[in-house]
């Protein structure tokens, strides 16, 4: 059936949007009031900042505003440099925020998001520590599967493996791979990768990101049988 859960949970496609973080080294400098950021880097940083704020925002109205803001910045970025990985990646991030705000349109938005991520990967696969492949993986393993949405666990696993191959020591890549392994039923590999993610996080400088990665790794290990 275009089931109860498309009756009830297509409802919930927002679950497939992905926690995203600002690309390392990209500072989210606050723009001047009422003036758009000037550079591709600043626009990309503005999108990432909106995403980070949205992750911690419970009010639907504010999340809607953040999604609209991110969408405007991503389009401005693409208008400046249509083929730049930063802009294509930002557009994908903005689409993820839109999907969260509009769950009934999420399936289409996520397909477009995956397309943007593929183009970002073609432009610069290493952007944001292999971000295009990592986010592709998370969308593919969390989104509703065929035919309701673009979710595809095997493709998600392959994308996570690509991200780890590109940046093997970046904890979010290992966390994505662990999640993909768990979703495909390979619990041993999931446990191994949660452990690797934990070890990699411990080698990172102390801070909120590291704490979050450690927390995610611990939660994954706790869930592992």
């Amino acid at each position: 059936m275009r089931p109860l859960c498309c009756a009830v949970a297509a409802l919930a496609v927002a679950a497939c949007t992905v926690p995203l973080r600002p690309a390392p080294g990209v500072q989210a400098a606050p723009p001047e009031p009422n003036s758009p950021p000037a550079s591709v880097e600043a626009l990309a940083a503005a999108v990432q900042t909106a995403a980070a704020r949205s992750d911690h925002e419970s009010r639907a109205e504010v999340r809607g505003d953040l999604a609209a803001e991110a969408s405007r910045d991503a389009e401005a970025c693409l208008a400046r440099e249509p083929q730049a990985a930063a802009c294509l990646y930002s557009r994908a991030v903005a689409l993820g925020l839109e999907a969260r705000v509009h769950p009934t349109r999420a399936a289409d938005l996520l397909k477009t998001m995956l397309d943007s991520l593929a183009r970002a990967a073609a432009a610069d696969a290493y952007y944001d520590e292999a971000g295009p492949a990592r986010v592709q993986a998370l969308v593919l393993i969390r989104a509703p599967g065929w035919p309701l949405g673009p979710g595809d666990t095997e493709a998600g696993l392959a994308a996570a493996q690509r991200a780890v191959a590109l940046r093997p020591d970046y904890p979010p890549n290992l966390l994505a791979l662990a999640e993909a392994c768990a979703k495909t039923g390979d619990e041993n590999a999931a446990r191994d990768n949660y452990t690797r993610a934990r070890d990699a996080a411990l080698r990172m400088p102390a801070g909120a990101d590291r704490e979050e990665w450690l927390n995610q790794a611990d939660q994954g290990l706790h869930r592992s049988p």
Partner: protein
Amino acid sequence: MFCAPGYPGGAGDAQPLLDQFASVALAGSGWPAGSLAAVYDPTEQGGLAKLSSADAVLAFVPYPFYVEHASELHLAPLVQADMTDIGVQQRWTLVAKAGRVTSPASMAGYTVLSTAGYAPDFVRRSALERWALPADVKVESTGQILSALRRAASGEAVAVLLDQTQAAALPTLPFASDLQVLTQSPPLPVALIAVVDSRVTAARARNLQQGLIKMAQTAGSTEALTALHLRGFVMPQLPPQKPAQ
């Protein structure tokens, strides 16, 4: 209590839409304000646990869930859902590797995978009532239908039972020609709302039933229905339940 095992989504995402639906249903039923709230659980076990609670009075469930648990939960059908793009009934379709299965008996040793696999009685006695599966066939639940179809197409001893939406999309798969439709179910209800264990008085149930059936024509209800991919509700017309083998 909404429950749809095997389908995507989490309770938190669904809640605002369920609140909206409960509010509209309440207004149409004449029940006292604040007397009806809706919650969602995407898992069979979670749904069963919530439905066993004394304050769970109504179950909005897929038909497979109803077939599997109507008896133990004492579910009494109230209305049948009319789903957008589907209707009030749907056929289920069994597919396997092309040329591999020639009869039900040739499926000995197979595994049937389905989003409805959590409900083996539904699979064997309703969806496949005209395709008598050998006793050793396993019925398993999966939310990964694409993976299941890939396994079938690659020649594993796996058949996949598809709902109507999945079956309609089958030709879009690049490996669709490797698969073969074995049989289709008769038209079966898609989803329904049932009273749990007589926890609603007959008068209240009747009022709610009338309110739900009129909902599609009620001003202001369209948004709540559309958000849940519903067109409305009709009086339940369920096939007779066959006794377990």
